């Protein structure tokens, strides 16, 4: 995964914080993905403007206690999975 790559959500899909569920969900036609805390934190930074490197930098400043290498690996693995699942894509 290249860190200068910019991802965005699949067209028509929406990420949203659901107060009733206490988590982020990814909404798509007639369906929903329930996201855990880290997936929600990463996906809410995928906005079609930040690249992968920016997302990692932002998460490092938000979670300074997390080991830097692990955080980077986690972000890469999650984004790979999100691409596989068709949740996000890059230009």
């Amino acid at each position, binding site marked *: 995964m290249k860190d200068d790559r910019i991802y965005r959500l699949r067209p*028509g899909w929406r990420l949203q914080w659901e107060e009733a569920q206490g988590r982020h969900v990814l*909404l798509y*036609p*007639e369906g*929903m993905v329930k996201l855990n805390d880290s997936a929600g934190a990463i996906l809410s930074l995928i906005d079609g403007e930040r690249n992968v490197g920016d997302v990692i930098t932002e998460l490092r400043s938000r979670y300074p206690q997390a080991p830097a290498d692990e955080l980077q690996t986690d972000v890469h693995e999650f984004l790979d999975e999100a691409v596989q699942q068709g949740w996000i894509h890059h230009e």
Partner: protein
Amino acid sequence: MNEHATSTQKPTPEAPLWLLAELTYRCPLQCSYCSNPLDFAATTNNELTTEEWVDVLRQARAMGAVQLGFSGGEPLVRRDLETLVGEARQLGFYSNLITSGLGLDEARIDTLHAAGLDHIQISLQASDPDVAEAVAGSRKAYDKKLAMARAVKAAGYPMVLNVVLHRHNIDQLDAIIALCAELDADAVELANCQLYGWAHLNRNGLLPSREQLETAEATTVRWRERLSREGRDMQLLFVVPDYYADRPKACMGGWGSIFMSVAPDGAVLPCHSARMLPMSFPNARDDSLEWIWYDSDAFNRYRGEDWMPSPCRDCDERHQDFGGCRCQAYLLTGDPTATDPVCEFSPHHHLIESARREASEDKRKAAQLTPRNVHESRVFCRA
């Protein structure tokens, strides 16, 4: 209350995630496979007002519902659809319009899009106008649907088409998928018709034969391979008819589990077909959705497992299919608490086999089935 009674209390159900708003039973088409209630004509003068629908949306959203379907009948018949879509967007719903495409034009697509509609699903009847007319009772509908499918895509929505399959169009499946591919659809649901409401009335004239079904499944597989070879991203979803499955479907993910449907007159149902069951359902005009969901007898009746008959109650799969569909159990056995006869372990499974046999002897053409319209519906309306 003593200690024992307290400890056996049922756990509080989870909040609903899905709200289906059946805005109206009015529809310009007369599809003989419609799942609306037979007596729908009794409610056409008693629809919820715009304000009442807005209140339903607010209550459901506050409870946690997030997916919203606008359906019917034909929801576009309601001139306040745009207002309701706007309200839904503001509340944070993800809203899906489930439509025939009739009543749509480019300008209305733009207005709905601007109001915040997230998704549009258009139904197709067939790959040629003759069959479409025989099934839906309208010739002009065919061209209109194709034009609207293209317009939806041009407006930036994914094109998701729904084709209801039955004996009279399933042999055309190859041409139907070819048409969808030519339209550049993103996803196509090939859904064998669910045998409720008008479709149940016309059951013997709709159910395909096993040979037809197997050919259709093979056609779908062949198209998936072809699309993949050509690098095309068109999803094909094939839904087998219940009467040819060996296990029942997990109807609605369980009764009163995630899904709540509000009918045009405000009746609140655990499933849009449930109205036919021999029980009464609460109404959003009389009670809050919260009370209806958590406390009403109707929503608690088939929740959990306490109601389950044998063989469901001892079955390892009861958490997967929840005993199947209550409407199907009632329609086939007369007992809404029976195991869904689709299940091969049901003592009534022979009813499915005889239904298939009966259907094979029905030689009616599509145009000879009972059309779903107000005139026919009045026959079923109780005084």
